[in-house]
């Protein structure tokens, strides 16, 4: 039901269905259809195969944000993990820590969720499993203080990478977003120029609300990358197409399960192919 001069009705309906059911969203789907109309010949627009290839190529361009890889060029390299409730932040930290250790780095976890029941205990288990020290605080203590202590410990022990967990929070809760800004300022106090990465974790099951999540967390903190979790489910995570195109932030990793090894580098080709499966 978009106005489209040359796309045959069948081809348009087919494309719309794939895009909408993959959570690509109304606005981004319209932009993709406009792109096809503007760039393909009438003959090509009648060829479903050519359309699909052009669409895949365009989507790939939109999600492949041209930024250098994560560099670990400062020590300690400080990574802050943020996102709304239940998306997989703590689990992803467990996976990242193990991954970086396997690359020969020393890692320390900061248990920056001092709010939720058993949050420290949860990240402590991940630390134990990977042989990674966890610095935590009392439940209800100031998360910025815990993270500051963790960074001090990392400096004293000559640790390569600090990964700071934070409590899940809805982006609409302004005092909680202010708390994150404070955590960011405290990191910078401890190590100038840090945090060196702020990764926003998004759940692939999330619909269009992921767009406001990305926008609000980015406006508040300036995120440096996205981690898309739970892609082992049936959701496609299509909402990140519009997010990457608009915010120009790269998806760095994807989560594909609940075990420590279930983390992969983001591959635009894999992502686009999965959309059209």
């Amino acid at each position, binding site marked *: 039901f978009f106005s489209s001069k040359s796309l045959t009705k069948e081809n348009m309906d087919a494309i719309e269905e794939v895009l909408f059911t993959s959570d690509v969203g109304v606005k981004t789907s319209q932009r993709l259809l406009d792109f096809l109309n503007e760039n393909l010949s009438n003959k090509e627009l009648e060829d479903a195969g050519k359309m699909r290839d052009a669409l895949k190529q365009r989507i790939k361009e939109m999600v492949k944000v041209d930024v250098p890889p994560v560099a670990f060029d400062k020590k300690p390299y400080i990574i802050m993990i943020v996102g709304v409730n239940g998306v997989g932040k703590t689990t992803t930290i467990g996976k990242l820590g193990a991954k970086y250790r396997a690359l020969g780095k020393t890692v320390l976890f900061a248990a920056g969720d001092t709010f939720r029941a*058993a949050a420290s205990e949860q990240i402590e288990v991940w630390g134990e499993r990977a042989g990674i020290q966890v610095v935590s605080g009392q439940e209800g203590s100031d998360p910025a203080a815990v993270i500051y202590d963790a960074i001090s410990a990392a400096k004293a022990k000559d640790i390569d990478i600090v990964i700071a967990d934070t409590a899940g929070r809805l982006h609409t809760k302004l005092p909680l977003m202010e708390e994150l800004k404070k955590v960011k300022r405290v990191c910078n106090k401890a190590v100038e120029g840090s945090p060196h990465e702020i990764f926003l974790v998004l759940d692939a*099951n999330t619909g269009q609300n992921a767009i406001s999540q990305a926008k609000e967390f980015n406006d508040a903190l300036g995120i440096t990358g996205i981690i898309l979790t739970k892609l082992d489910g*049936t*959701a496609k995570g299509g909402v990140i197409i519009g997010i990457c195109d608009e915010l120009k932030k790269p998806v760095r990793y994807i989560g594909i399960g*609940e075990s420590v090894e279930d983390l992969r580098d983001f591959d635009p080709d894999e992502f686009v192919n999965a959309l059209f499966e």
Partner: protein
Amino acid sequence: NLTEKLSGVVKRLRGEGKITESNIQEAIKEVKLSLLEADVNFNVVKNFVDAVTRRALGTEVLGSLTPDQQFIKIVHDELINMMGKDSTGVELSGKPPVAIMMVGLQGSGKTTSAGKLARYLQINKRKPYLVSCDIYRPAAIEQLKKVALTVGVPAFDTNPQDKPVDICRAAIGQALVKGCDVVIIDTAGRLHIDEELMKELEEIKAAVNPSEILFVADAMTGQEAVNVASTFNQRLDITGVVLTKMDGDARGGAALSVRAATGKPIKFVGVGEKMDGFELFHPDRIASRILG
């Protein structure tokens, strides 16, 4: 919002005596797009819009309402109609202790909702007992125990080396001993496509014969809400839905998707991280929100 968009589009209905297929085409398109933006499932939107069209066609433009108001009212009423009734809470029939199972995808809010439900039942003069049979997630049992402590409700001392079915049976035995009349079972998050773990839920159901099986769904869920909810419903015959994280700004179209896919009632809404962030479901509230 949709009302504003529709007022513009349906203005031309003024001066027309009846609503016809052609004169509401634009309005129907606006409704479609608005529902998709609200994360209502693509096919649920199609069916909803067909229902609205059927209801609207041939409707006389009544004297008291302007045509746009009439159309909006039809959309609103149809949405409320599809969402079901005001929730009356949980069904607790059967010999005590009665079991309630909390099921759903990873991270949807089951453990938190289990605690909230316990608090709600306690306020309603029940004696709830909490048990975690999540032997997989690090510190899951600890989380549920802490939640129980916060609410002031006893919790089973789950041994993560035991099987979930045995844990649940033992917990019911303990609840009986303690004189509790409801056992709320917190299960591990799982994928609807994980055959082994879906079977585990079926086994727990068979063992405890629950009075309620509540599917806990995140309000920000997108298109897959239909697929996930249908699968849980087909495997378990859920009795109700808890929609969590409604204190955010997600439009919550998943509510309509889940309702349409399962026909089961939405019983509660989670509106915060604390134990008091729990309300009975009211269809008119979510209908306005979905329509934006």
